[in-house]
C-alpha cells in the first residue's frame, strides 16, 4: 500500500503556457480565416500575423508509439505545439507557410489522414464500446475504423454541401451525441433477468426509479427479492442495466443498430436540432458492420447530390421533405418512425402541406 499522499487539487490546467506564441500574441485579435486546401486552415490576425493549422485524423485510441510519432512530426515539421479538436483530430500549428507541405507529407507518409476541415465528413465521434465500456451493445472503435475506411475520401476532400458530423454510440444513452448522422444501438427485447443475483447486486429502489416508463417493480422470484419487468410497457432502453447488471439488456441477436439523421448543434441559419430516426433493425455485425455503413453511404450520396451549398442534412431534408428523403435513400417508412414520447404531437403534420 502506498503512503497516503494528499492530492494537489489543481483542477483544469492553464493552457496559456502551451499555446503557440503566435496564438498567445494575437489572442482575441483574429481577423479572418481562409481554407487554402482541405485539412488546412489559415488564420490572419489584425496584426498581420498568420498561422496555419494542419488537421489530421488518427485512430483516436493512441498507443504510446503512435503518440510519440505524432510528437516527432510536430517537433520536426511544426513548432512543437498541437491542439486537439472535439472530434479527436490532432491539429498542428505553424507560423511559416513553407512548413505546411512538408508537414502534410510527413503526416500522410506516417499513415495519418490530412483533412476533416469545413465541408468534409469529419472524424466520427464515438464511445468506448467493447474495449472499455461496462454496458456496451456493440463496439465503437471498430465500427468507426470500418466506416472511416469507406468514407476516407470524404474526410480528405471538402466536397460535401456543408460539414457532416457522424457519431456512433454503443448503447441508447448515446454518449456519442447528436450528429448529422448517428449510428446507435437500439435494443429490441426487454432485459433478461438473473433473479438469483438481483438482491445482492442491485439497489432495487434506484433501479425502479431509473425506468422511464415505470415498467419495473419489486417482486419475490424463486423465494428471493428481485425485480420484474412489465414487458408490455418496456421500451427496451437499457436504463436499468447499468445500476443492475443482472438485468442484461445486451443480446447478440436482438440488440440492433439504428440510424438517426439531422442532429445539428450549430445555430447557423436555424436553431439547433435533434436527430430523427430513419433506419433500424440493422444487424450488429462485427468486425466490419457492412450493412450500417452501406446505409450511411446512401444517405451521404443523396445529401451530396441533392443539397444546396451550406445546407446541413437537417436543412436539406426540411426543404425536400421526409417523403422524398425516404424515397431517395430507399429506406422503408414504418409506424416506428412515428414518435410516441412526450411532445410527440409537435412532430405531427397539422397542415395541408403535402409533398408529392
Amino acid at each position, binding site marked *: 500500500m*502506498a503512503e497516503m499522499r494528499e492530492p494537489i487539487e489543481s483542477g483544469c490546467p492553464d493552457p496559456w503556457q502551451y499555446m503557440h506564441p503566435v496564438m498567445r500574441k494575437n489572442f482575441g485579435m483574429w481577423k479572418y480565416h481562409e481554407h487554402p486546401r482541405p485539412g488546412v486552415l489559415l488564420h490572419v490576425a489584425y496584426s498581420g500575423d498568420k498561422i496555419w493549422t494542419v488537421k489530421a485524423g488518427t*485512430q483516436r485510441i493512441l498507443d*504510446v508509439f503512435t503518440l510519440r510519432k505524432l510528437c516527432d512530426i510536430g517537433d520536426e515539421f511544426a513548432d512543437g*505545439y498541437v491542439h486537439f479538436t472535439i472530434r479527436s483530430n490532432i491539429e498542428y500549428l505553424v507560423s511559416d507557410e513553407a512548413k505546411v507541405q512538408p508537414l502534410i507529407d510527413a503526416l500522410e507518409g506516417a499513415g495519418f489522414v490530412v483533412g476533416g476541415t469545413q465541408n468534409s465528413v469529419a472524424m466520427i465521434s464515438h464511445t468506448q464500446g467493447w474495449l472499455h465500456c461496462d454496458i456496451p451493445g456493440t463496439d465503437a472503435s471498430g465500427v468507426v475504423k470500418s466506416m472511416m475506411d469507406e468514407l476516407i475520401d470524404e474526410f480528405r476532400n471538402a466536397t460535401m454541401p456543408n460539414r457532416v458530423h457522424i457519431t456512433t454510440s454503443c448503447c441508447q444513452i448515446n454518449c456519442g*451525441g447528436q450528429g448529422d448522422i448517428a449510428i446507435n444501438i437500439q435494443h429490441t427485447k426487454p432485459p433478461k433477468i438473473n433473479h438469483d443475483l438481483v438482491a445482492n447486486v442491485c439497489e432495487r429502489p434506484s433501479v425502479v426509479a431509473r425506468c422511464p416508463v415505470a415498467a419495473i417493480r419489486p417482486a419475490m422470484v424463486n423465494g428471493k427479492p428481485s425485480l420484474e419487468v412489465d414487458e408490455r410497457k418496456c421500451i427496451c432502453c437499457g436504463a436499468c442495466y447499468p445500476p443492475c447488471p443482472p438485468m442484461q439488456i445486451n443480446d447478440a441477436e436482438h440488440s440492433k443498430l439504428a440510424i438517426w439523421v439531422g442532429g445539428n448543434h450549430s445555430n447557423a441559419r436555424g436553431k439547433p436540432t435533434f436527430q430523427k430516426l430513419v433506419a433500424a433493425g440493422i444487424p450488429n455485425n*462485427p468486425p*466490419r458492420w457492412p450493412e450500417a455503413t452501406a446505409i450511411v453511404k446512401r444517405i451521404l450520396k443523396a445529401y451530396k447530390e441533392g443539397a444546396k451549398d451550406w445546407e446541413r442534412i437537417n436543412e436539406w431534408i426540411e426543404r425536400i421533405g421526409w417523403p422524398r428523403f425516404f424515397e431517395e435513400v430507399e429506406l422503408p417508412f414504418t409506424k416506428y418512425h412515428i414518435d410516441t414520447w412526450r411532445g410527440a404531437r409537435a412532430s405531427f403534420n397539422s397542415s395541408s402541406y403535402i409533398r408529392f
Partner: protein
Amino acid sequence: MAIDKHATPMLDQLETGPWPSFISGIKRLRDQHPDARINAVTNDLLGQLEHSYETRKGYWKGGTVSVFGYGGGIIPRFSEVGKVFPSSKEFHTVRVQPPAGNHYTTAMLRQLADTWEKYGSGLITFHGQTGNIMFIGVDTPNTQNFFDEINDYGWDLGGAGPCVRTAMSCVGSARCEMSCTNELKAHRLLVNNFTDDVHRPALPYKFKFKVSGCPNDCQNAIERSDFAVLGTWRDDMKVDQAEVKHYIADKGRQYYIDNVITRCPTKALSLNDDDTLDVNNRDCVRCMHCLNVMPKALHPGDDKGVTILIGGKRTLKIGDLMGTVVVPFKKLETEEDYESLVELAETIIDFWAENGLEHERCGEMIERIGLANFLEGIGIEPDPNMLSHPRQSSYIRMDGWDEAAEEWFARQAEAGR
C-alpha cells in the same frame, strides 16, 4: 520472454483499409514494447476484445477504485473473463482534465506518455466525450502511482459519477475570428471553482459546463451541457463593404443572394445595387451564417458578452433536452463580471442539489418544476428571450397578474427601456 499470443482473426480484419487502425496500435504495444508487462496486458486485452467480437457481448464490469482523498475520476473496470485473460483483468481508465481548449506542447505529451507506460497499458485517448484525456488500462495499485506522478507535475483528475464534470471550451480567442469571449478564462474559473464537487461526487447526477465562443457552438454546449456559455454580441455586426464587394466579384451576385441573403433566418440582410450589404441589426439573431460565409467582410460587434443556457442533456431519463436561455446577455469583461458568472453557477448548482431528485439532471428538474419556478428559485426575472413563444395553454392560475405586470414596467424603467 515470448508470450503466447491470442489469435485475433476478427480484429485482424480491422487492420486492412486506409484509415489508421487502433488494432495495429495495440499490437505494436504487444509485439514491440520493451516492457513485458505491457506486452502481456495488451495481449490479453486483444484476446478479450476478440472474444467480444465473436460473442457480440461486453465483458467489463464497474466497481469502486479511487485515489487517496478523491471519490471519483477513475472509471473502474474488472473483467468478467479475467481467468482467461488475467493480465488485463483490472483495466481501469484514469480521467485527466486537459488544459482548457486542448492546447498541448509535444514535450508535455511525451512526459505523459513516459509516465503512462511506467504504470499503464500504453493506450491514451485525446479526448473522451466528456472532454477528459483518457488513460485507458491500469490496475488498481498503479492507479494511485500513476496519479501521484502526473499530479506532481500539474495534472488533476476529471469528474466521474454524480459530480461536476470536466469542462470543455473551443479553440476560441486563441485562433478564431468569431470568438466573442475569453473561453479559456470562463472555462477555468467555472470548473476550478467547483474542484471539490469534481473530486467528491455528491450531487443528484452529473453537471457539465461547456463554453463556445460564438453561436456556431463548436463545443456542442446547448445540446450537451447543463450550463452552456455561448459568446455573442448586442451591438451592430461589423461590415467591411470593400470586402463584401471582393467576395461578390469573386463568386458573383447570385451566389451571395442564394447563400447569404436568402439564408438569413430573420430576413435581416439586403444586397444593394452597388454590391454593398445592408444589415437590419434589430432583426438579426446572431446565427453566424453570414459571418461563416464571408469571414473577411463580416465580424461580431464590439459590445460582446455571453448567453447562458441551462439544462441540456441526452436521452436518459425523460428524453433529449436542449439548454434553455436563462441569461439572454451578460457582459464578461471585468473581474466582477466573471465573479458573478461563477456565483450564478453556484446558485444554480445549490438550488439543483437541494431540489433535484436522485439521478435527475438539472434540465429534467426544470421540466418537472417548471421554468418559472426555477427562475424564482435562482432569483432571475423572466424575459421573453427565454421562450420561442409564450404559453398556449389557458390552464394556469393568474391572480398575481397585475403585480407581475407592474414589476415588468418597473424593471423596464430601471433599465432605461
